[in-house]
Every structure is written in C-alpha cells, then in structure tokens.
C-alpha cells in the first residue's frame, strides 16, 4: 500500500523512503484518495474470486501506508463476506504489549466469522530504528510474544503469564477467537534458517511464506522448510508453504512489460531501497547472515531493471499464458500451496491495477487452481 503520489525525486535524493524521509512529503488529501482506492481494490479481490486478500505492516515510510494492518483488515472484515483476510503480519516485537495483538486479531476473527489468517513477523530492520526497540532482543521478544498470544487464544482464562519481557497477572481474553483452536498462523519471511526451524516445528507447523525474493532463493528456502520438517519426522503439507511475489498480467508479454516497467522499477529502486545499516541493525539477523549480505551488497543494493527482475524471478510479468507457464514451472519445483500475488506495486495506477487484477483473476487464476 505505497504512497504512490510520492515525489520520487525526493525519495531518490534522500537515498531511502524509510525512517527519515520527511513526512511533509505525505499529503493527507492524497492519502485519503489512496486509502480508499486501495481498499476498493482489496474488496474487488473478493468479487474477482480470490481466496484471500492480504494486508501488511510497515512504519514511518512511503513504502506502505499501513502502520496498522489491523485497521485495514477491520474495514475489510465488514465490507467483505467470503474471502479470508490475511494480516501478514503483525510485528510482534514492536508492540509494547502483545496482548493487544491477541485482542485485535481475535476481534477481527469474530467480526468476520472466522475469516482471519493471522501472520506474525518481527518487523523489518528499519522499524527497529523508527521504534527504538532493541534489535538484539528481537527474536526473544518475538518468541515470547507469540507464546503469550497463542496461550491467550487457547487456554481458559484467567491465567498468569510469566515471561522475561512480558508479565501478566490475568490473561483473560475477551473476545476469544472464532476459529478453533485459533486463526491459522502464517510466518512471512525474507528467508532465515532460524525462522524455518521455529515455524516448521511439529508443535507449530505454521505456513512459511517467502516474500519478494528471486525464485531460486524461494526454492531454496521452501526446500529447506520441507527438509527441516523431515528432520522433525514428518512430511510438510503443500499448504505449509507459500510464496509472495509481485505480478503483472498484460494482453501480451510486450505490453505487460511496457505497462509495468516504470512502476515496478519505482517499487524496487525507490520504495524498497535502504542502506545496509538500516536494513540490518545489529542482532536483527545472525552475524553469519550479515556477513553474507555484506558480500552480496553490490547486487542487493544496486538498481534492478524490470528485465533483470523477471529473469531473477523477483517479478512475474507477461501475458496470461506466460504467467501461467511461469507459475506452473515453479509449482512443479516447489509445490507451494499458497501463492500471494501482489497486483499493485510502487506507482502502478488504479486503472492498470484493476486491469491486472482482472486479467489475473479471469485468465490465470483458473489454471493455477487446477494445480
């Protein structure tokens, strides 16, 4: 949900649209238009036959206008009747009190009659700069917050929770979630062994969602997830695997690329961009991963063209036939049970977003449902 009216030159000059891009660049009147447009597009997703619509959380950035995905999901809970609503996800360590997440997600689940998919994330590195939360305690706080939320959803209250970061004398959730034992939990990630070990554990078996990565990287992590499950002594179901990727469907390969080019490149090279120190504050990742990123710095932090992104599988773009073929090939490799297509990205305007949604839903989705 980008601030698509951004003065792109200002974003470029600032080096990033995260953390320190002055908020004077946000015009609330344009914001009003954008929010309502994006909500319309999400609601249209239901009409077009998507199984779920997804929202996510990012703070103090032109990249995304949803510091609280709960607000967007709440609006959708009332406007839609059938689709699942996926919050992918709430950034647990950034909350002072994780019970607020348990409560808000439970409310949406109850209001929507059990249509919530509940995603948990740690928030990206930049958000540890904006919120001041100590990144070296990020994993600890995430795990403890998760334990508190799941217990609050499932155990009869009141009970006491004794943790290191959170201590609550009376956990006694009103409302309890609609779904039994609780809404499905998904774990979106940019790829991390620690996260996979944790999410795939037999006690959890959470759906692991690899987000915005080159297709080879997606394949590697989804395989790692399956292998880890085998190590735990069980076979992963396809439904435990997901891939989130920006997609653009056009009438032809040529017109798809022409229509999407500028908007995708704005997305990748203006909205996503940030310096290494912002992306990976100390402790956010293991030091080994940090070293790998430092080695790949030139590649990761340079500009990427649409053509390169398509080649890398970072972006799926083309005619309906091409898009179907691409996903079929990847599905044969990876067997992901969940595919999240990001049909609006960067500065993609309303008319092209609608067209993209329609072409995907009418010409691609039916073929993918056969898989």
């Amino acid at each position, binding site marked *: 949900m980008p601030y698509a009216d951004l003065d792109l030159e200002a974003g470029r000059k600032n080096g990033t649209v995260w953390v320190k891009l002055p908020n004077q660049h946000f015009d609330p009147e344009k914001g009003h238009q954008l929010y309502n447009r994006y909500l319309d597009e999400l609601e249209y997703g239901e009409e077009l036959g998507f199984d779920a619509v997804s929202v996510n959380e990012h703070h103090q950035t032109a990249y995304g206008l949803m510091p609280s995905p709960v607000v967007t999901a709440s609006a959708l809970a009332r406007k839609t009747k059938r689709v699942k609503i996926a919050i992918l996800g709430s950034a647990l360590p950034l909350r002072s009190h994780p019970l607020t997440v348990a409560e808000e997600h439970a409310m949406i689940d109850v209001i929507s009659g059990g249509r919530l998919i509940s995603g948990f994330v740690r928030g990206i590195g930049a958000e540890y*700069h904006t919120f*001041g939360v*100590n990144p070296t305690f990020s994993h600890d706080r995430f795990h403890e917050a998760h334990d508190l939320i799941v217990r609050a959803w499932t155990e009869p209250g009141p009970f006491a929770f004794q943790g290191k970061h959170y201590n609550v004398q009376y956990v006694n959730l009103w409302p309890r979630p609609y779904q039994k034992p609780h809404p499905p939990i998904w774990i979106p990630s940019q790829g991390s062994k620690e996260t996979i070990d944790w999410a795939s554990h037999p006690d959890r078996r959470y759906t692991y969602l690899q987000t915005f990565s080159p297709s080879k990287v997606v394949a590697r992590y989804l395989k790692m997830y399956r292998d880890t499950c085998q190590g735990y002594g069980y076979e992963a179901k396809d439904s435990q695997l997901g891939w989130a990727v920006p997609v653009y469907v056009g009438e032809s390969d040529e017109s798809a690329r022409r229509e999407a080019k500028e908007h995708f490149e704005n997305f990748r090279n203006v909205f996503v961009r940030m*310096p290494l*120190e*912002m992306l990976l*504050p*100390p402790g956010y990742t293991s*030091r080994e991963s*940090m070293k790998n990123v430092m080695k790949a710095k030139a590649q990761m932090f340079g500009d990427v063209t649409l053509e390169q992104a398509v080649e890398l599988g970072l972006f799926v773009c083309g005619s309906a036939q091409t898009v179907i073929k691409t996903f079929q090939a990847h599905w044969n490799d990876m067997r992901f049970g969940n595919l999240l297509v990001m049909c609006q990205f960067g500065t993609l305007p309303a008319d092209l977003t609608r067209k993209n949604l329609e072409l995907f839903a009418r010409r691609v989705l039916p073929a993918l449902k056969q898989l």
Partner: protein
Amino acid sequence: MSFSESFVEVDGCRTHLRRGGKGEPLLFLHGASGAPAIMPFMEKLAQRFEVLVPEHPGWGKSDEPEWLENIHDVAYFYLDFLEQLDLRNVTLVGSSMGGWIAMELAVRDTARLKSLVLVSPAGIAAPGVLPADIFLMAPEDLVRNLFVDEKLVQARLSAPVDVDETLKNRHTTARLAWEPRLHDPFLPKWLHRIDVPVKIIWGKQDRILPVEFVAEYRRLLPAAEIKIVENCGHLPHAEKAEEFVDFVCK
C-alpha cells in the same frame, strides 16, 4: 613499554586483558569500537601506572556471556573484576561507553577506586542534545565522525578490519545502548554517590557525543574537574594523547 596479553576468567567470562607498566593501577575501559590494540596513550600512561586494558564482555577476544543484557551487568562484572584481581587505589578511566560503565560502577561502589576519569562519556541524557546515530552510520562515516585530524581518519580507514570482531562489537554495543540510546535514565539520580575525585575531558569538536553534554555534567557532578580539548573529536586519548595523559596524571 611492553604490554603482556592474557585471559582472566571473571563471572564465567573469559576476558582478554592487556597489562603493562608499573605503579598504581589504572584501568582503562574502552568505548563502542573496542580496544583491539595498544595505543600510544596507553604506552605513555604505563610510564606512571600499571595500565590494565581489558576487552569488555561481548567485545574483541572476550567471551559473550549469556548474562550480558544491559550496562548494569557490565558494571557488576567490573566490580567483580577489581575484586578478583585485588586491585586497589584504581584510577578508573573510561572512554565513551567505557565512561558510562565507569559511572555505573562508581555509583555502586567506589571502595577500590582512587579517582575517575571520564573521556567524552556516554551514560546520561542531556536536554536538547542528541548523540549521533552511530547505528545508522556506514562504518566509513563513523570513522570520519570520530576525529578532527584527517590523517587519523585515513589511518583508521586504511587499517585492516576484522569483520567478525567489528560485528561482535557492534552487536554488544546495540545490546547495551540501543534503547534508551547510549544512556541510563536512572543513572543521574545516583551520581552524587561518587565520592572520589572525578575528571572529565571532552573534545570540542566531538561529533558523536557533542561537547554540549558537558553542561549537564557540571550540574550533576559539580565538583568534577573539566577540560575541553581544542581541535579534537570524540577520542581525546587517541587524537590528543599528550594533553590527555597530562590531564590524567596531574
């Protein structure tokens, strides 16, 4: 003057320690970027003192103990360190985060201290003055912001970097100082407990912890002797070694 290198185990933490010189003990507590080598000011001090330069838990070649979670842990660690090595009449010198540790230690117990020397210390907040955001700086920019003297910048930039140690030091710095950023909001109310002489030295052109912090120290430690060094950045001991050593020794 040669320094010996050894490891001592304190509170289960194998701690890297350099030691050199003869005289009363002087314990130097390094700042965020560690103490990877013997520096000229240490050699100079070693002509007057027995100089001890440990690497803090979580830095350099020292262990990263499980118990290391906040600055208070480091203060208690060094109280145990002083006791275990049976050091008395210690001149405790701390630079930046080391100055913060020195204050946290001293508000708890000064029995083994003779005096305190704070070198552009972190540790307190001052109204309207913010430390530089060291965690958003690229490593090269951090070095550029440490010194006034361009020669020192170039020397530091061209020195070999141990990536593992740098990441480790950065990690521990964040663990102890990310939030609240580089200070302990509960420290100022106990600074009056420090009953040994305190000296404070600050580079006038400090771009990490601006010299304006000094006003707050004048208020909180009114008896402290304060020296502002001209043409000097965040590390007076490195940038103006002679002035620094004179100030410590006089």
